[in-house]
């Protein structure tokens, strides 16, 4: 159990040389059995554990992470948070998440630096404007904060942007979600881990799930590199590795794992006040509190688990960025990296029971699941605890790919991340 964080504990520790801080979470040994096991120590997995313990009293559970918690996409995403999605089902879960985000720092007693600085989605032609306006309207009726700005208003909201009308892709307007923004991804992971741990959840790192055992269609136990565990429930939250896990119980998923890259500039004094996203020009950029521009690049077209992408994608990304922000040209790229995103056919997640009793799937968040982290964990925990999806999770069941009831967020309104 770790001590409470606040200004006073900071001062106290400052005075005594920070010798009093306790471990934020334990490094427990693997128990031989748990009431439920969560595969994947990313934001979604830890949030699932956190809510299972907090809201469903399930504390005899474990989160199994093959590497270090937050080392997957949670540790490599551009942390854009917004909820202005087109369809009701999406709006419901992402807005649910946004509400949870707003208070999560205090709830976890961990400053996740949730910064509601506003997210702009740019429109560069009438077609885009049409679909974005459609989204704004749908958002309004769904109670999602979202508004339409014309080019001048965009410029006022984000002064460094170029709205030169002679550009190949001039900015003709944008949607703005003021409550959208960014946060500190590592802090989210650590805060969730610390809170879950304090309720008794075992977080096992450097432990890889190697197999899942079933008997007549039900989960009985799992195998890991640190031994096997008896458990009636297994919840897979392995993002890029979802199909690898599903394969252990012979389930095929509508998922492909692609490289997605991001990069940061050198740290700079405050330069852009908000998050800017553009589909046509393919840019998404914000500035971290440390000062780097955090820039998302495009997805590679092929399946790969290497956490690396192609260089020309970075070049195109830069060219696009220069189009919208000519003043960035002399700045420098400091580091680039890649993640493995689990892309689903309709760009919507899978939160679902499976044909194997006790095996639950949370996957398919692709390029845009960070923003959903608490909402996803909350809904998934509910599913794992009660074995029936609540109304937020229901639309995201695997069945939709069989019946054809897709949540086609990639349709005309497609905006990744």
């Amino acid at each position, binding site marked *: 159990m770790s001590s409470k*964080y*606040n*200004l006073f504990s*900071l001062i106290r520790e*400052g005075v005594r*040389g*920070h010798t009093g801080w*306790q471990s*934020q979470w334990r490094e427990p040994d693997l128990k031989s059995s748990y009431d439920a096991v969560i595969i994947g120590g990313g934001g979604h997995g830890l949030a699932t554990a956190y809510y299972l313990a907090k809201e469903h009293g399930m504390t005899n559970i474990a989160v199994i992470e093959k590497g*270090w918690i937050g*080392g997957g996409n949670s*540790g490599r995403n551009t942390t854009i948070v917004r909820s202005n999605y087109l369809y*009701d089902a999406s*709006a419901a879960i992402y807005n649910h998440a946004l509400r949870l985000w707003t208070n999560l*720092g205090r709830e976890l*007693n961990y*400053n996740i630096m949730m910064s509601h600085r506003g997210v702009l989605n740019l429109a*560069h032609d009438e077609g885009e404007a049409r679909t974005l*306006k*459609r989204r704004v*309207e*749908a958002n*309004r*009726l*769904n*109670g999602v904060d979202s508004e339409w700005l014309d080019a001048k208003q965009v410029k006022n909201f984000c002064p460094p942007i170029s709205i030169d009308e002679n550009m190949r892709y001039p900015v003709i307007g944008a949607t703005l979600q003021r409550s959208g923004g960014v946060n*500190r991804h*590592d802090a989210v992971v650590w*805060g969730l881990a610390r809170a879950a741990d304090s309720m008794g959840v075992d977080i096992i790192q*450097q432990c890889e799930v190697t197999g899942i055992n079933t008997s007549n269609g039900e989960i009985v136990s799992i195998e890991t590199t640190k031994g096997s565990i008896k458990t009636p429930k297994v919840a897979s939250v392995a993002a890029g590795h979802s199909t690898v896990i599903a394969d252990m119980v012979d389930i095929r998923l509508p998922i492909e794992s692609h490289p997605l890259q991001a990069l940061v*500039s*050198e*740290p*700079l*004094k*405050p330069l852009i006040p908000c998050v800017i996203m553009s589909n046509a020009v393919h840019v998404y950029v914000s500035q971290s*509190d*440390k000062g780097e521009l955090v820039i998302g690049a495009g997805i590679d077209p092929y399946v790969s688990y290497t956490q*690396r992408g192609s*260089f020309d994608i970075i*070049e195109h990304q*830069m*060219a*696009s960025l*220069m189009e919208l922000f000519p003043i960035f*040209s*002399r*700045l*420098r*790229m*400091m*580091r680039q*990296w890649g993640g493995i995103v689990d892309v689903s056919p309709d760009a919507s997640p899978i939160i679902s029971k499976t044909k194997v009793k006790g095996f639950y799937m949370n996957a398919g968040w692709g390029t845009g699941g960070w923003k959903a982290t608490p909402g996803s964990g909350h809904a998934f925990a509910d599913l794992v605890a009660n074995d029936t999806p609540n109304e937020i999770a229901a639309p995201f069941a695997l069945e939709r790919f*069989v019946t*054809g*009831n*897709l949540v*086609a967020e990639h*349709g*005309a309104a497609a905006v990744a991340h």
Partner: protein
Amino acid sequence: MVDLSKSLRTVSGGRIDRSISVEFSFDGKKLSGFEGDTLASALLANGQHMVARSFKYHRPRGIVAAGSEDPAGIVQIGHDALQTDPNTRVTEQEIYNGLVAKAQNCWPSLSLDIGILNDTFSDFFPAGFYYKTFMGPPLSWMNFEPIIRKAAGLGIAPKGADKDRYDSTNRHADVLVIGGGPSGMAAAKAAADAGARVVLAEETNQLGGALLSEPDGSISIGGNKIDTAIDQLRASLEENPNVILLTRTTAFGYYGDNFVGLWEKVSDHLSAEDRQPLQPRQRIWRVRAKQVVLATGSLERPIVFDGNDRPGIMLAGAVRTYLHRYGVLCGRRALVFANNDSAWATAFDLHDAGAEVAGIIDLRRDLSGHVLENAARRGITIYAGSAIVATEGSKRVTAADIRRLDEHGNIASATNWITCDLIANSAGWAPNVALFSQSRGKLRYDDSLQAFRPGKSWQNERSVGAANGTFDLQVGIDEGHLAGVEAAAATGFKKRAGKTAKAKHNMLMQTDLKIIAQIPSPKTPKKVRAFIDLQDDVTTKDIKVAIQEGLSSVEHIKRYTTTGMGTDQGKIANLNAFAFIADQMDKSVPEVGVTTFRQPYKPVTMGALAGQHVGEHFMPRRTTAMHPWHMAQKGVIFEPVGDWLRPRAFLQKGESFEQAVQRESKAARTGIGILDASTLGKIDVRGPDARKFLNRIYTNAWSKLAPGKCRYGLMLNEDGMVMDDGVTACIADDHFHMTTTTGGAANVLSHLEDYLQTEWPELKVYLTTTTEQTSVASICGPGCDKLVSELLDNFDPDPATFKFMDWRDGRIDGIPVRVYRISFTGELSYEINIDASYGLWLWKKIFALSQREGGAFDITPYGTETMHLLRAEKGFVIVGQDTDGTATPIDLGMNWIVKKDGDFVGRRSLTRSDTSRQDRKQLVGLATLDPGKVLMEGTQIIATEDETSTPVPMLGHVTSSYFSPNLGRSIAMALVESGHTRMGQTLYASRKGDKALAVKIVGVDFIQERTDGTI
């Protein structure tokens, strides 16, 4: 105290041109240096050690190293706020006349920086302190964030668009050699001699590498002094046409299949006058190499001790580099603090150059051999088994406390402060393995080096010389030579062993070394400030806190403390961090592991990465043959469709866009309208199985379409959703002319080729795109047949005989054309196709017919907006506007086009339980009860007039909406839940801040609806 007013430039020596002096300024001070100086060497020559403030505590930061590994010596370059370069490393920026450099991240000035307050309270800002507070209220993050943000960040971004230009270029090499030191040069020479295509990239401005840090006479290579030897090598490489020799060029990224990105700084070292206007500022070389030789040398590692961050505390090797490469003394009274022999050379050379060496402090207890004699001969005091445990000096180190350590590494002697203005320290050399690791080779920890060296290679690459942990000059050269020979051989050139230059030298090599993760301190732990990352202010204490808080993975510790996350990426800090973590956790360094070496090796200008694909060259603007005519019309407005630019409307004087569209639309149904339809996708489909093929990819049947006739078709993807549409004409029994949407053309072709080549290879059909072969003038309006007959050479367009959905060949002034009687406006219309080279001529000819006196045709050019309006009046869908990838033909009310039997792409999806439901969103017409009110496209349709509290159930949305001049009312199309069964119903169009608008559900063919009297 030494007097810094006198220049610290040595009287002679150094690889600079003393005949050319260069004027520059730092923080307003006018200073001068010599050609060949870096900003760092010139500043040091002027006694300026302190150049920056640290990231977090704003502590004074000086110059530590002599290359791109320098952690914190970064400044703002440029006098012009519009074109300035933030975070520029002084050790890399070469000086030129008029160079302006400013300190950054300090206020009001470098020497007096308010930010230092952070330092005073640093006790309360441990690693990750911000995670522990401001969770609000009362201290909410949204209030505090702006303050943090202001404090954070380093340099200031330019305020203006970049005036410089950048290029990128491609090269294929047999052998790419990275690093121009002795080993790299040997490799390049050997490979080139074998006949291979060689690229040699050297980060700095000269070949030579570490040799340039040695006095010219001290080494003989192949019988020559260093500089002569280098010049000869350079010359022989330069005259070889198969060698591309690049200096000021950094290999920044090692990617897949031996693709390596090189970043050349073409003119950053030149003053504005000297830059060649045609040359880019920087250039990216995209090199695809069959073999790569990594000769990137080694990086010296500092010792971690209390107060090790003061300006004047430098790497021993760097001090020698400044002395021998730049002819600069880094101090007048130096202490050398080491754990290996190599640093002793620094002491000796400083002494020999006239500086006072106040002592050599070596962690090793039992020293022996000629270093001792050399020191004794120079009368240098030696402190064996001792360490510097504390330092003094606010903006420059002034003294150090030297203590003896016992065998357990504990302090074993009393305070002994020695004044100095320079501490040259070295914890040994570590191979520069960044690129090797980027290439996804595996590192091996070398216990004798106590550092990582290249282990298993993954790509076709070899590491040589210091980069490979080979520190002996001769062995390094031989290694390089052999690598060059073998790399060339591996790419198919004859293997010739050849001979290597013999090097004679008495360099002091790093022999055995003694690493102490952190030097002990007499202070209470709380007071110790031993820095590991000088840029981000990460101390050993921060790392302790992180470990204590349970962040056990090196990756966690990195992210919690931000060690190695600065602009230097911890080039000299990381190894010390790993070692300290290992020490704290009683693990071995390999057990702790390393963080990931990512691209770029060092920060690369974004503009350079964008290369030439910016501004006008960013993306192609595809235009039709008629474009010049369109551009000549004053009021024309264009619409981008994919890469194409199409006229959207032709505004006349004083006309608004809306007015223009109304006029054009009316004209097209009353007079004659003409549209440039050239961009429509066109595919020639030919082969005995063409019909069978069309049957499989379109939803309707094609078996019976006769030559001379056309048919409209819908294409689905396998998910059953409408993907594209268009009219296809039967040219001959085995030959069809297919048209697609402008935006969909490319997709459709690859979609079709995909099915032909992978699913149905047995079908004998060939596809060739002809989109740009023909220009298309689409003429419509009552009586436009007269224009057509006027236009074509004896051609009878009589609609009675030349029927709707027929096509015919004809000629205009002898030029062959093909005319299609097809229409997406519902009006009488003719599409004239002509070879594109005649497109503009035809277009002009048509308008000539509207010019002639008497009986001139009343021809109105119209754009895509009017085209959209006209087709909407007829209820024709536009794929991509009325569909968004979620609509089936049935949803669109087009059941008539779905054949009953036989398979086609997407067919099976239509009968899935949810896809076949009746309550899906279906396309309907909307008639506002108030005919004057035009709905906004995207408007949501709801069931009730008053919007209940959110979420308000939405029944659908408006996909297209216009005011129809021909019907004199507003019309709209919408996808509405169970729309087809709601005919006649009244629903409501939700409006922001306004009462919802009542709309009646009607059929989509508004012209028909009007005749039926429903609207």
